[in-house]
């Protein structure tokens, strides 16, 4: 109390003193450690990577980019898979996250316990979701096939589906695992959004005779637009660059049917020992992520100013 009282008693003097005695070194000494770290360990490596993209067997030039964009059928396939993976992951995470957030926003008994339980998938080390879902989807000893067998999906003579071993289902299975891992974070953001909706609006609408569906459509959804946008951007970015789930579950296989950009980059860099081409694909991935990234920056900076 005494401290704040003194400061506000001499506002002008404080300001004058500050501006005169302010050696301009302080801001830099404060900001330097983090900015230097980000510079040395983010900007420099990425710049190095960019330089290397222009180097190939043919010498210096745009050969790597021509190869990636025009010639590499696998890169095109991986791009399609990545879009597919991100799109369906985000749709699944959003719908599930929204439903659970709506439920947890109600006055349920044991709400706190429900909230923690729904959050659990999100705490696991990055490789664990892929590992456990790989085991669940296992064609021979997987619990999914066992369950399907017990509910009569398979006939006695049927050969159970090898979900991760056939080209038509491998990518879908990785999406399921990614939805499971990612929906809790979506739920957290959406629940925080729901809790900041002005409850007087609902009361007024109830008085006016609006039913639950109308209230949801006319109050909840519009109020959730901002947070939904940010949540979807973050989920899209996370899914688009995801490596661990696909690498652990299928490593891009079988026959590249679940190859996404991240696994393709890893293969080029560490299996085919073509670091320059891998860096080229990495820079292309970075550029594709800069679009949602820019929207995220704009949304955050704007809300920061308000």
């Amino acid at each position, binding site marked *: 109390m005494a401290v704040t009282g003194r400061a506000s008693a001499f506002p002008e003097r404080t300001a004058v003193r500050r501006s005169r005695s302010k050696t301009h070194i302080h801001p830099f000494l404060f*900001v330097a450690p983090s900015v230097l770290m980000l510079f040395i360990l983010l900007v420099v490596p990425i710049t190095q990577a960019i330089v290397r993209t222009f180097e190939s067997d043919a010498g210096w030039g745009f050969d790597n980019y021509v190869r990636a964009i025009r010639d590499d059928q696998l890169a095109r396939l991986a791009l399609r898979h990545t879009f597919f993976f991100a799109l369906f992951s985000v749709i699944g995470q959003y719908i599930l996250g929204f439903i659970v957030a709506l439920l947890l926003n109600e006055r349920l008994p044991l709400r706190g316990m429900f909230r923690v339980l729904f959050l*659990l998938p999100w705490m696991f080390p990055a490789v664990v979701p892929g590992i456990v879902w790989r085991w669940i989807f296992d064609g021979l000893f997987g619990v999914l096939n066992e369950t399907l067998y017990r509910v009569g999906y398979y006939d006695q003579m049927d050969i159970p589906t090898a979900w991760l071993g056939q080209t038509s289902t491998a990518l879908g299975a990785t999406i399921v695992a990614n939805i499971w891992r990612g929906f809790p974070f979506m739920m957290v953001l959406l629940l925080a959004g729901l809790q900041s909706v002005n409850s007087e609006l609902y009361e007024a609408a109830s008085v006016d005779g609006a039913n639950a569906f109308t209230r949801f459509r006319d109050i909840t959804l519009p109020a959730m637009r901002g947070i939904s946008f940010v949540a979807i951007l973050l989920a899209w970015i996370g899914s688009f660059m995801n490596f661990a789930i696909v690498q652990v579950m299928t490593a891009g296989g079988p026959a590249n049917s679940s190859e996404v950009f991240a696994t393709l980059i890893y293969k080029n860099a560490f299996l085919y020992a073509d670091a320059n081409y891998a860096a080229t694909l990495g820079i292309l991935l970075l550029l594709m992520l800069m679009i949602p990234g820019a929207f995220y920056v704009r949304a955050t900076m704007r809300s920061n100013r308000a």
Partner: protein
Amino acid sequence: MPSGSGLSRRRKQRLALVLKVLLALLLLIPTLFPMYWIVISSLKTNLETHSVPVTFIPADWSIHAYREIFDRRNFDRYLGNAMFVALATTAWGVFVAAWSGYGFARYDFPFKPAVMAFVLIAQSFPRILLVIPYFQMANRLNLTDTYWALILAYSTFIQPLCLWIMKEYFEQIPRELDEAALVDGATPYRAFWDIILPLARPALGATAIIGFLTAWNEYEFALVLTTTERVRTISVAVASFIGEFTTEWNQVMAAAAVGTIPVAIVFLFFQRQLMQGLTGGAVKG
């Protein structure tokens, strides 16, 4: 009849509540089943994990898998590695984020908006791109297979998010507090360290948790920057237990379970702080 309609309305509300609880329980089944499956599979024998019909409850309970990962696969080493890397990342990463976050919150400097925009967009830099130059850099500096490479990589990687959380929190602390200390003759560093930092304990907690969880859970850097078990962390170890031809799934699941325990503890005790830290920035808009 007003009393009658009131009663039926209450009954309707109660029915709605029951339906909501049922829906929540229904959604919990797929949410929790994989965790149940990790634990159950880890308590089976290797033979039982490779037999049909698949059992939902072990016919032959066994802690053999847990014994194997510690006795034969050096899992204690990986746990120790992960713990050291995670704690060091947390200490260094949070200190830097707090120190610089204060600078961002209190001072103006040239190109500040551009630097802030860079900090934010750095969150969408794909790790898989970064590991390529990191791998080459670590090789050149003889840092491959050392703790330092991982600690530096992780404490940089958590900077954007942690810096942002700290900055937002410092901005809510009245400037008069720093100014009073400066009037009393303290240096800005003293004012930060003695007055402001202790007030930012909730934000420090949130960033510390994020640092620990990120470092413990990370996969890409650990995969590329470690080549032997000397510094390998649990993520890579767990994944490496999956063999090319045969996999002892009970051991993989035991490793997944044990590797999750530390983050589960952190998570269950601090989930409220974690959620506040994570949603603080995003929800304001």
